[in-house]
């Protein structure tokens, strides 16, 4: 574990990213007194902290997932003073309500990216580059083999697949992480093709986001008494773990698909043993990462989450001062579902 210099705005500790000037942590993985949270995914918003601070757009989902917690909220772009630090949250484009966190201490500005993607997805608040001196960036897809196709093209593939299945009397089952990815896919679907059914975990998140005013197409939750025959040509959105499980048997003959950035790789696609893999990621691809880093104007880059060694080496060869942040988070493959 490496720690920063004494005058660094943020340091890396065994509990997570720490700001001494404001005595708070960002996305800590062990219980702390005050936690600033970038977004509601389980590896960033963990239970057990005394106080949480996040955007007002992120709070409902986090409360839905973590239950009775003490949450303060800020709006995007609003400044908040904590000790000697000034903090603000800026859209990260990862999922609805997701933020990058800007921390300024005595004129020195650091930004923690959280998870992000730079292209608009039609649902999340669009990524906003924030000028800073030091940028702590994720690099889940930090290799030049990851380049995403235009979302519109993938939407066509998705709808063609769905329509072909519907025409053949097959149900389409799409595996996607229940917060963020699932809702983004719903917005990509063409509701004229057929009804959209959802797994309970997905529908619970839908309810929270609809309550916040995010517009989603009509969906029907799959309940034990639902007769699948009433929904011919349906597309079912479910968490990846439910696809291929006993839960999915009720849909009879079906075609399965997964939506993730990892589906770019044939090996991962085959390992998933799904009929189709759709390359839809809530993380930045290689050009996206480069664009984001350049836009911050930062000289110091800290790489976290992903192929950090390789990514940092590349950045150093491009004239940045880049370092690797060790994290306790699981290996890349654990994130296949979410990414």
């Amino acid at each position, binding site marked *: 574990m490496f720690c920063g210099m004494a005058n660094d705005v943020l340091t890396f500790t065994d509990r997570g990213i720490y700001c001494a000037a404001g005595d708070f942590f960002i996305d800590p993985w062990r219980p702390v007194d005050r936690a600033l949270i970038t977004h509601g995914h389980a590896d960033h918003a963990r239970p057990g902290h005394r106080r949480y601070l996040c955007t007002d757009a992120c709070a409902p989902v986090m409360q839905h997932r973590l239950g009775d917690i003490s949450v303060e909220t800020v709006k995007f772009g609003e400044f908040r003073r904590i000790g000697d630090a000034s903090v603000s949250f800026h859209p990260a484009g990862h999922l609805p309500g997701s933020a990058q966190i800007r921390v300024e201490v005595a004129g020195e500005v650091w930004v923690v990216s959280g998870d992000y993607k730079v292209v608009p997805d039609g649902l999340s608040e669009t990524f906003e580059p924030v000028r800073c001196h030091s940028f702590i960036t994720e690099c889940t897809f930090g*290799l*030049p*083999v*990851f*380049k995403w196709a235009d979302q519109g093209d993938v939407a066509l593939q998705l709808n063609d697949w769905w329509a072909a299945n519907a025409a053949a009397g097959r149900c389409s089952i799409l595996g996607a992480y229940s917060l963020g990815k699932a809702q983004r896919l719903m917005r990509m679907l063409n509701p004229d093709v057929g009804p959209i059914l959802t797994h309970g975990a997905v529908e619970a998140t839908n309810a929270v986001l609809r309550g916040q005013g995010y517009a989603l197409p009509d969906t029907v939750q799959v309940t034990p008494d639902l007769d699948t025959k009433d929904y011919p040509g349906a597309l079912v959105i479910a968490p990846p773990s439910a696809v291929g499980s006993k839960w999915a048997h009720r849909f009879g003959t079906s075609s399965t698909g997964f939506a993730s950035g990892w589906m*770019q*790789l*044939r*090996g*991962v696609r*085959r*390992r998933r*043993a*799904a*009929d*189709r893999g759709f390359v839809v990621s809530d993380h930045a691809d290689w050009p996206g990462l480069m664009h984001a880093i350049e836009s911050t104007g930062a000289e110091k880059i800290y790489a976290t989450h992903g*192929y950090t060694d*390789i990514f940092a*080496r*590349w950045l150093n*060869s491009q004239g940045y001062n880049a370092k690797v942040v060790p994290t306790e988070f*699981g*290996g*890349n*493959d*654990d994130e296949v579902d979410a990414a």
Partner: protein
Amino acid sequence: MKDFATLFTTIDQTTKTTAKTKALANFFTQASDDDKLWTIALFSGRRPKRAVTTTQLREWAAEQGDIPLWLLEESYPVVGDLAETIALVLPPPSRQSDLPLTHWITELKSLVTADIETRKARILDAWDQLEATERFLFNKLITGGFRIGVSRKLMTRALAQATGQEEASLAHRLMGGWTPETTSFHHLIEAEDSVADESRPYPFYLAYQLDDPPDGLGDPEDWLAEWKWDGIRGQVILRGGTHHVWSRGEELMTDRFPEFGRLPDFLPNGTVLDGEIVAWDGDQPYPFNTLQARIGRKTVPKKLLKEAPVILLSYDLLEENGQDLRHQPLNHRRARMNAILQELPRDAPIRVAPALPFDTWDRLADIRVTARDHRAEGLMLKRKDSPYLSGRKKGDWWKWKLDPLTVDAVMIYAQQGHGRRANLFTDFTFAVWNGNDLVPFTKAYSGLTDEEFRQITAWVRKNTQQRFGPVRQVTPHHVFEIAFEGIHASPRHKSGIALRFPRMSRWRHDKPLQEANTLDDLKEMLETYG
């Protein structure tokens, strides 16, 4: 190439065999004869001669993708396939074309003799007019190993559907030493099959593993038992006054085993025998590693020929006097074989693989446990009235192998896999104790479930001590039971031993590191089983 890319995409997008077969059959009814012939060739392990080295491909791709070579090299193990890695790092093509598969293969063949600048220019030009999937397939044609989820069996079935011919006879037509350069689609598939290539072997009949006790097979009277020899399955053909030796992998091995050169003196034309090629010490086979020394040599030095002479332990007669006997019952084929082979002199490089007499399944079980004493891996069980089928079929032939030997070993190095195992740590090196040191003695790649590979991958990422290129040294912690079929001395290995078919049979979560086996334990096994 667009129709071939569409075929590939359709096959790649389904896990269902029937859907794959249908897509391929459809292609076989629509494509040109040349494209059909090359498709058959690619899916039966034939490919154009390599036009450029993979090193050159990597360099050119990195240059085109505007990335340093090291970054492409680091991306490769994540993707797990070089052809795919290259396709992904290249910039989008600047133009479109739809030249057929055969055009690109002809183009690659023409590059074999071209100078390096021409090769580079033509490859870059190809990349610049192929879209992602076509590029991937084009690269696959160069890097070789065209494995894309289509087995030869599946391809043969699709061809049968498309042509209305019988699958078994097509399988036979596709055997042997043809290449797309030496034949045509018409000659290979459609023409009257009377002037068949004289070297052409029959498709091998393969047995399934018997997992349950043989009691379920019925009356022992109906069954023939033989040792399951640990050599190379081979077919010896005598036709037209000369002989041919084929391995099960359909490699022509005639020159590697000059011993069989004497066979035309003993055996009549129109004879085809199926058996096991083994190195023979006069009474029984040598261990497999003796034969291994022979397999690698295309020409055999006299000394080796003397030290490790091979013979065929023959167990089936597929052709007699030019007549195909495969539809005849096994006991008839065997009787004919015995009649032919009993005339042979003692020093002929061929012997009958003996049938093992038994009257009850219990008696056979007793025989099976002595297999290692006979340098065998177990038993073969064959129904006496079975015809000689083609490929792996359930029912009439079974292999009943010995339980493997096992040793508990410590994982010390890990490396990522390829293909569908890309980005997962699946290739491990294992060690046993020698005093306080861990001595590496084997690698193993298989035996764990996908879920276990995922777990160990997460663990490897967090417990890497050092990296040597793609290899990671990990904290000695996990103990695995390694199963293997044989053990022999090997001066090339640090531990002094080498294993046959090692694989991980169990993840010993229950076993502390210190209780793994020792080098002395292995040496003892070498004494007993080596």
